[in-house]
């Protein structure tokens, strides 16, 4: 089995290195194909590992080599395939394979075709390290690796200033959070003396709760950055500047869920500190609502989906925080499928509309893009949680968990958010695919995406429809290590009322969205009363948070930096260094006259040096001989 582990892990690396060979050359179709094949290989290996685990096989644990061994510190390159990591591996490799194939079509005309695949495969490799590592250090390496690849892919079109800005924003925000995570990892090492998950978790129950709380908080700060939780959420929406397959893979399905993975992986830690768990759940519920509200009014197709991702991440954290780790992981998986599908569909629309992102300028696209319409509708149904699609099973279980744990506020917020989710998803679908063909005034001739792209998306379509059937086997698989318990509402009546009520609520939200937007006929120009209302402006400007960050953090920081640069750096630091250099240079300039080349002069200098040294020798000799007297003399002077 170990060889499958190595194949799953290293096939993406090979793919990345191979594609990287051609980054400086014009588009070569075979890089895309070979990269896709290698990622598919990784997927197949992961599937074999999944089957092994499903059949009740022992988790596979390998140590590739020693990485660091100094004193008491021992960190190996160790990898583990257990129920949690194999789930993540399946999600990562499956979505990656599809996105790789899809990108062959999507990046068809791009100059950076080969470079794109090098970055994308490098991302998959980093993500595999992240999920397969058996210790926090390896996880951190993968964590930074995905951050780097995310930076490279958001700023993939580096000639666009806004793209480079967004990539830097994402990178810097993640750095801030990673500092917290590093502190968390240090605390783990400090208190347990090991970074291996199993050993560290085994020692944790014996630590005092304050220490555990700090560890939990700092690790969660790292998770907040990667999963774009409030207040570090702004980078995710801006990250939509990257190519759409990147948004689908990194900023919807995999990387942003790394934070959830971290919390699920550290479940034994978080079970010991329910207070932090409650905080995580509350923050998750808040972010779910907060992000969904911003998606209500946004006029950028990709940003709407990005906010919905943010909102769903909130759901996952809510579940994880309440101790329903397996539900969080299950929602992570289901979400990866339908959200990637939604993004890839949006990519088709963008291609058809020549990179137009405003859904108000589209409309009526279902005639020309039938398959994309079907896929995006089903993905939105799954996202909204309509029976029998994937989202119903995962999201409803989160609601049930919140209800069963008697956290009714969280339950209420999440339920309300489910309605908002349905509304904005179908607002988007209705605006893009129904109603009048508003794009015609802009002179765009849309066309359906390549057939192979649609075929590549079809596994996601199927999974978005049927992923619910995996709930039972999934539960059976992870309950061994996730202290899982199924959430049963005590009375059947309550359960049915909840189920039907939620479905009705969501269905009404969908109908309302259709009624309001399916017959939309004009492009809003910012004059209608609703666009000038307070709430619309508040939501449209993302609660003015980016503005706030810009004005109160970025600008003062910039001004302070400027001040330090001109006053401290130039006037003090540089001046000191330049002064020392000037002294050395001036002395050299003066003394080089000694080097006249005249032997006679040089001999005179030699004699002068000799006399000088002789004088010193005599002086020190005398001082050494009469040291006692000198000390007496000096103390008499009061020195």
């Amino acid at each position, binding site marked *: 089995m170990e060889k499958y582990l190595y194949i799953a892990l290293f096939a993406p690396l090979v793919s990345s290195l191979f594609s990287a060979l051609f980054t400086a050359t014009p588009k070569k179709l075979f890089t895309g194909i070979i990269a896709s094949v290698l990622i598919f290989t990784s997927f197949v290996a992961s599937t074999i590992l999944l089957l092994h685990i499903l059949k009740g096989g022992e988790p596979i644990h390998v140590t590739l080599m020693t990485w660091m061994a100094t004193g008491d510190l021992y960190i190996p390159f160790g990898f583990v395939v257990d129920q949690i990591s194999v789930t993540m591996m399946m999600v990562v490799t499956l979505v990656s394979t599809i996105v790789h194939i899809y990108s062959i079509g999507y990046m068809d005309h791009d100059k950076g075709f080969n470079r794109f695949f090098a970055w994308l495969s490098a991302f998959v490799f980093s993500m595999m390290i992240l999920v397969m590592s058996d210790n926090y250090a390896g996880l951190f390496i993968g964590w930074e690796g995905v951050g780097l690849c995310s930076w490279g892919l958001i700023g993939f079109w580096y000639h666009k200033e806004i793209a480079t800005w967004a990539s830097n924003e994402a990178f810097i925000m993640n750095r801030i959070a990673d500092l917290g995570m590093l502190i968390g990892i240090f605390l783990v090492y400090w208190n347990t003396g090991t970074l291996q998950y199993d050993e560290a978790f085994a020692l944790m129950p014996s630590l005092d709760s304050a220490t555990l709380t700090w560890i939990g908080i700092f690790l969660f700060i790292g998770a907040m950055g990667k999963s774009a939780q409030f207040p570090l959420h702004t980078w995710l929406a801006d990250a939509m500047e990257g190519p759409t397959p990147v948004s689908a893979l990194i900023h919807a399905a995999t990387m942003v869920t790394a934070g959830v993975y971290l919390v699920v992986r550290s479940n034994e830690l978080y079970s010991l500190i329910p207070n932090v768990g409650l905080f995580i759940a509350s923050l998750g519920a808040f972010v779910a609502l907060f992000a969904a509200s911003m998606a209500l009014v946004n006029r950028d197709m990709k940003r709407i989906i990005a906010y919905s991702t943010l909102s769903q991440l909130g759901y996952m954290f809510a579940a994880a925080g309440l101790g329903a780790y397996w539900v969080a992981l299950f929602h992570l998986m289901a979400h990866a499928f339908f959200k990637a599908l939604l993004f890839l569909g949006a990519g088709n629309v963008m291609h058809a509309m020549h990179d137009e992102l405003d859904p108000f300028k589209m409309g009526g696209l279902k005639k020309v893009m039938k398959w994309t319409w079907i896929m995006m509708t089903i993905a939105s149904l799954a996202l909204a949680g309509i029976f029998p699609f994937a989202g119903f099973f995962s999201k409803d279980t989160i609601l049930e968990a919140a209800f069963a744990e008697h956290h009714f506020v969280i339950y209420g917020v999440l339920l309300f958010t489910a309605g908002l989710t349905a509304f904005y998803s179908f607002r988007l679908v209705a605006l893009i695919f129904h109603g009048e063909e508003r794009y015609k005034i802009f002179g765009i001739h849309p066309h359906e995406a390549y057939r192979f792209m649609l075929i590549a998306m079809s596994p996601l379509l199927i999974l978005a429809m049927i992923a619910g059937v995996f709930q039972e086997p999934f539960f059976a698989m992870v309950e061994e290590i996730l202290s899982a318990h199924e959430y049963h509402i005590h009375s059947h009546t309550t359960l049915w009322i909840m189920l039907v009520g939620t479905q009705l609520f969501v269905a009404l939200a969908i109908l309302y969205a259709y009624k309001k937007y399916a017959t939309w006929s004009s492009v809003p120009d910012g004059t209608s009363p609703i666009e000038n209302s307070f709430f619309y402006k508040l939501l449209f400007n993302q609660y003015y948070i980016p503005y706030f960050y810009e004005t109160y953090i970025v600008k003062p920081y910039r001004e302070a930096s400027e001040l330090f640069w001109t006053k401290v750096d130039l006037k003090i630091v540089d001046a000191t260094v330049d002064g020392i250099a000037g002294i050395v240079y001036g002395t050299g300039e003066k003394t*080089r006259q000694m*080097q*006249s*080349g*005249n*032997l*006679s002069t040089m*001999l*005179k200098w030699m*004699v002068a040096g000799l006399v000088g040294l002789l004088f010193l020798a005599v002086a020190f000799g005398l001082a050494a001989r009469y040291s006692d007297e000198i000390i007496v003399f000096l103390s008499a002077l009061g020195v």
Partner: protein
Amino acid sequence: MEIGLNHYLVLSTILFAIGLVGVMRRKNLLLLFFATEILLNAVNIAFAAISHYYGDLTGQMFAFFVIAIAASEVAVGLGLLIVWYKRHSSIDLDALTTMKG
């Protein structure tokens, strides 16, 4: 008055000073060699005198080494000097400034 160690050392110092002045003042390369010889022999006198004073032969042995090395140095130096003279037809030190930095 018996001639003791101090006299030898004073003689050595005087000779050394004369040599040093010669090394500094002479502009003729040949005379520079003479001055060097005076320096070396000043040291030899000191070696021999101190060696005798302590009854230890090491100093005298060292003096022999100095004489031998001085001889070979002069042989090489004179050879170079002759080559230099053949090239430039002058052994004036002030003309010998090709090493100017």
